């Protein structure tokens, strides 16, 4: 965890280099264990007004399996502490499809989480990748993951329970109370420009995508020698950008407007996607309301199929 002093240097530098909106959403990702009263008061003073905490689940067995340092009650206490410290914009992350997790477990997690003072949640299914510790266990058959039906029931539980408690699903995996959508995350899905700083950080400016060198040592070495850290630059072709425009926008409940698309790319959607939208509408995977194209609940559940249809190559 960055010390308040270091964080302060970063914040000061940002203010020197940019003029920052007074209402800006400034989020800090924190582990529940690190959310102490002292730290909170320090960061709040620096203008940080939103905290995002990787809580994951309220099941202590699953938490230790995931290698997290906190317990469920510690996490709950930390969230309440942050709220009491005056940070009222709190987001937490939950996970489902964890090995050994039952549908009941996950429902309990959801109910537990909605009773914490949070107004934003990101809910992800666990993806097990080759080469990771979980990947190895999986290959050896040592992980019992929820079956298809259970995953589906978890997904449905998420879609049903969270809105019932006032957290609207505004993106595939994101839920927020009115007025508390993550402004930062929306920039990605709307293909706005954004600047990422730090090792492995990504930026998008115009048609360019930048990726800073991932190694922290290399990053620091470059800065110490007075140079900019190396970055990988990619220029997106118009087609690549259009693909991303569509499938990133479609992640959001609101989708995207035909008009905005046409203004941005100079041609109507059909120039690039003959009958894609019509076909998907017929399959009841997309809907169009007053020029806004968005996914139906069924479409969102099998979003990968919908996204794939928007690939041009």
């Amino acid at each position, binding site marked *: 965890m960055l010390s308040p002093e270091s964080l302060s240097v970063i914040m000061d530098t940002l203010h020197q280099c940019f003029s920052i909106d007074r209402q800006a959403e400034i989020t800090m990702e924190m582990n529940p264990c690190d959310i102490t009263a002292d730290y909170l008061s320090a960061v709040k003073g620096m203008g940080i007004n939103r905290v995002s905490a990787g809580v994951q689940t309220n099941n202590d067995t699953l938490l230790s399996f995931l290698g997290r340092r906190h317990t469920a009650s510690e996490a709950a206490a930390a969230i309440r502490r942050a709220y009491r410290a005056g940070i009222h914009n709190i987001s937490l992350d939950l996970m489902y499809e964890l090995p050994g997790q039952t549908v009941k477990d996950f429902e309990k997690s959801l109910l537990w989480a909605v009773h914490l003072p949070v107004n934003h949640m*990101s809910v992800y299914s666990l993806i097990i990748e080759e080469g990771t510790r979980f990947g190895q266990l999986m290959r050896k058959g040592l992980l019992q993951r929820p079956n298809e039906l259970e995953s589906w029931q978890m997904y449905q539980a998420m879609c049903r329970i969270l809105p019932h408690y006032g957290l609207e699903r505004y993106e595939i995996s994101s839920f927020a109370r009115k007025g508390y959508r993550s402004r930062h995350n929306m920039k*990605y899905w709307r293909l706005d420009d954004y600047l990422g700083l730090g090792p492995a950080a990504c930026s998008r400016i115009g048609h360019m*995508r930048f990726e800073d060198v991932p190694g922290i040592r290399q990053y620091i070495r470059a800065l110490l020698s007075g140079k900019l850290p190396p970055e990988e630059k990619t220029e997106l072709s118009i087609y690549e950008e259009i693909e991303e425009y569509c499938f990133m926008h479609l992640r959001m409940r609101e989708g995207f407007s035909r008009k905005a698309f046409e203004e941005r790319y100079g041609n109507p959607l059909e120039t690039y996607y003959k009958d894609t939208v019509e076909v998907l509408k017929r399959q009841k995977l997309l809907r169009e309301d007053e020029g806004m194209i968005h996914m139906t609940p069924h479409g969102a*559940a*099998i979003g990968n*199929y919908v996204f794939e249809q928007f*690939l041009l190559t």
Partner: protein
Amino acid sequence: MDTEHIRNFSIIAHIDHGKSTLADRLIELTGTVKKRDMEAQILDTMDLERERGITIKEQSARLMYKYKDGDVYELNLIDTPGHVDFNYEVSRSLSACEGAILIVDATQGVQAQTLANVYLALDNNLEIIPVINKIDLPSADPERVKKEVEDIIGLDMSDAIEVSAKTGFGVDKVLERIVEQIPAPEDKSKEPLQCLIFDSIFDSYQGAIAYVRVVSGSVRPGMDIRMMASGKVYKVTEVGYFSPLPKADTELPCGSVGFICASIKNVHDCEVGDTITTAENGATEALPGYRKALPMVFCGLYPIDSKDYDQLKDALEKLSLNDAALEFEPETSTALGFGFRCGFLGLLHMDVVQERLEREYHLKLITTAPSVIYKVYRTDGEVVMVDNPSALPPQNNIEHIEEPIAKVDILVPSDMVGAVMELAQNRRGEFITMTYLDTTRVTLTYRIPLSEIIFDFFDKLKSSTRGYASLDYQLDGYQDTDAVKLDILLNGDLVDALSVIVHRSNAASRGRSLARKLKDIIPRQQFEVPIQAAIGSKIVARETVKAYRKDVLAKCYGGDVSRKKKLLEKQKEGKKRMKQVGSIEIPQEAFMAVLQNDE
């Protein structure tokens, strides 16, 4: 070169007994190609041939060899295709020779194609020089193999040459023996021109080029020639020989082997087995043995993307310029759209054409299950040849159906006879004879419906005999059969490209196993897909491919975009091998599954 100093020969062998390797050594040893230019197996020129280690197109080479008496001899090597599908081509090549080198593998001994090839050579009255190859291998047993050849074929093996084509050991003796033992061609230089076409290739500048053996007379540029089967007349623009690359010459004299260019539009106008003579005062009779190359196996070829139809048509036209046995005509399928019905000599030929279309012309194709030609006698007295299951007339219009039968010779160690018999019986085989070649090996002869062996019979034979069995087959007429059409319905719609003609006795069980197999092959879609198998109006099986309910990337932010997009692209790429039929994605395996009846 006078005919006295010409020797024309082929090399015959079972597949993998070292035919191409020996050819390479002969070419190398006579200095026809400098050693440093030798590419392994230079006679197999197509990439595909080299990869699969088989010869498809024949190649030839003229080797100039200085015999120990100081005379230089012209040795014409005519390479032969090494697969049962191309039996007719082999027989034509052999009839262009006076002799043949018979290679037998010193570790494997006599195999089915050894026998088949020897009989072909004997039919053509060839002088046979037996060669035992691979004697460098530790498991080589030349004495046993010699005895085997004597016992089984009756060839005198006392002077068989032991060689290792790989190391070059003994190959010089082979050259000597070619000169000593193979008769020179008959000198018929004063007689009217007769050239036997034993192969042809297509060249985009020269047109079709005939590979010929000059049997009588001689041929020079400027001459007017006539194809005796088609009657077409051409002017010779160039003649030459192979060294092994083509080299132009002033004349192809009597007895020699080489090529003739005469602005022939395509290979169909210069068919293997045909005789070339002069346009005026030509030979009155063609050389014996010509027959049209008849396809035996048919399948539908469809572009996965219907936009590629014209490209597929072009590609097939180009391929058929060089492949007289390839037939194709447009066909439409309600499921697959526009495509072609293509006829092939056999499964290997089909595979090769399909692979060339994909590799050389970058086409993505769906191949329907191969079918044989059924003779359908209709109640109105008409007889129709049906090579496409969906073209089978309705049951009540059929009087009876006949199917092609193959006579199959299988050579197998005697302790594996049971396995082979079981397989042959499962394939509706009719047992003919069983002959003990020696104490350990047996030839089994069966008559088996061609439809039962075209697909995976050979694979099954190999696996049930641990690779020991070898096989040779030839067509043996038509025979009554009680055949019915088995249809597949996906999502309630008949998919004509999945229909298959099967024997009534096992139609229902085939239907059930096919439905089960398709259930595993057809990927789950975003909706439920019922699979039904039907015979006529009767549904004999039903399975369901369940819909998938959830598949969505949970997490996707700025930094993830490119990685996540790759996942989507991979997902899309996987579907490119599939054909969209209605709203269902069907992978290629589905069209092949209809032929696997390994229950």
